[in-house]
């Protein structure tokens, strides 16, 4: 029978962790872009856009990530897009991230005093100009700590993509467990790898928040 050393297990987990990191980055960046568009729709002066954005956010915040991934996985082929676990994971996590970021950022936009909207409107600025020059710069400052904090949820969300067959660190852990019969050790290490990825993010979110509170 083959023997597995601790290093065999750890090195394979760390190799798989690359895909966790890469998927997190893709989901966070593309989710951020989509989230910004969603935010603009959510606070726009056009009621249909506002309602549509609100509905999108409520649905994604009110359903499990696992179900969202399954639906993306099985729905994309229906509209003629060939799906791999990669595309389904990236698309699903992007939509999930966009919904949560848009809602977080809406709170930040609403924290900008109403007078700022009125003042910029009285300067005959359009909605786009108001957002670009007046509202977003001020909202951005308070948006940084919760956004960094949410990135932890994105990294943890990638674990769920293992269920639709995307091979990242959790899936690798399951595969290694099936070969080594050491679930306690393997899942313990998987947990520690996630902790090593997430804890610095949590700490920096906390530090940023403290800095912001001092500045105010």
């Amino acid at each position: 029978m083959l023997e597995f050393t601790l290093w065999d297990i750890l090195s394979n987990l760390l190799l798989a962790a690359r895909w966790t990191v890469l998927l997190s980055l893709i989901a966070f960046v593309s989710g951020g872009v989509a989230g910004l568009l969603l935010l603009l729709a959510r606070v726009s002066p056009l009621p249909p856009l506002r309602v549509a954005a609100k509905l999108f956010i409520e649905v994604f915040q009110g359903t499990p990530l696992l179900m969202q991934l399954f639906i993306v996985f099985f729905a994309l082929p229906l509209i003629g897009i060939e799906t791999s676990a990669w595309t389904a994971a990236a698309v699903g996590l992007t939509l999930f991230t966009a919904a949560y970021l848009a809602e977080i950022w809406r709170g930040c936009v609403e924290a900008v005093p109403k007078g700022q909207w009125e003042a910029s409107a009285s300067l005959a600025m359009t909605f786009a100009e108001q957002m670009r020059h007046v509202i977003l710069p001020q909202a951005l400052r308070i948006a940084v700590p919760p956004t960094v904090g949410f990135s932890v949820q994105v990294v943890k969300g990638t674990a769920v993509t293992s269920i639709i067959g995307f091979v990242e660190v959790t899936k690798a852990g399951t595969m290694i467990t099936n070969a080594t019969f050491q679930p306690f050790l393997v899942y313990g290490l998987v947990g520690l790898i996630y902790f090593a990825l997430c804890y610095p993010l949590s700490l920096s979110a906390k530090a940023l928040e403290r800095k912001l509170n001092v500045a105010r």
Partner: protein
Amino acid sequence: MAYSFDFSSLLDYTPVLVDGVVTTIGLTAVSTVLGVALGIGGAAARTSTVKPLAVVVGAYVELIRNTPFLVQLFFIFFGLPSLGIRLAEWQAAVLAMVVNLGAYSTEIIRAGIDATPKGQIEAGASLGMTGPQIFRYVVLGPAMGKIWPALTSQIVIVMLGSSVCSQIAAEELSFAANFIQSRNFRPFEVYFLATALYLALAVALRWVLSLIGGRMFAKGVSRA
């Protein structure tokens, strides 16, 4: 070739779906009660003057909050038997949910406790109340009222997160959906319906919790 949707084939599986929904509700109810109780204990320990206790609880909170629920679940279900602790699927699911919610609610309730004005604690002490009495009668009620909306959101997140318990064969709603799609080969329709059911459960859970909050912490609940 255009795909034609067929939701009618789901009708045969209504009992399976109902069972799944009931199990999801049961898992959520049990782990909410135990998890919030754990959170109250954790928050008391975290804010206590006994340093080692506060440090241990702090480590527990950070460890749980910075690892995925799925990995916690696998560790409990597949890992603990090596230590001789064998749990049934639903027991492992409840334990994982309680441990998870316990960590988050510790942090949330602690924030509410920290927001208690110092004068109220001093007033309690000047009435000759002991530490536990002050915690129980002065600090806890208003703190729970203040953080109830945040706690509600977290409980909804835990309920939605319970969908991954299907992976250890706990027979909740996602498990029912997986089972059905393996029989009728209509994955899109099944998952669409299951997702809609989760959405309805989330809305209902929010409503129930806000009723409970209004009843229990009427004076303290902040209108957020």
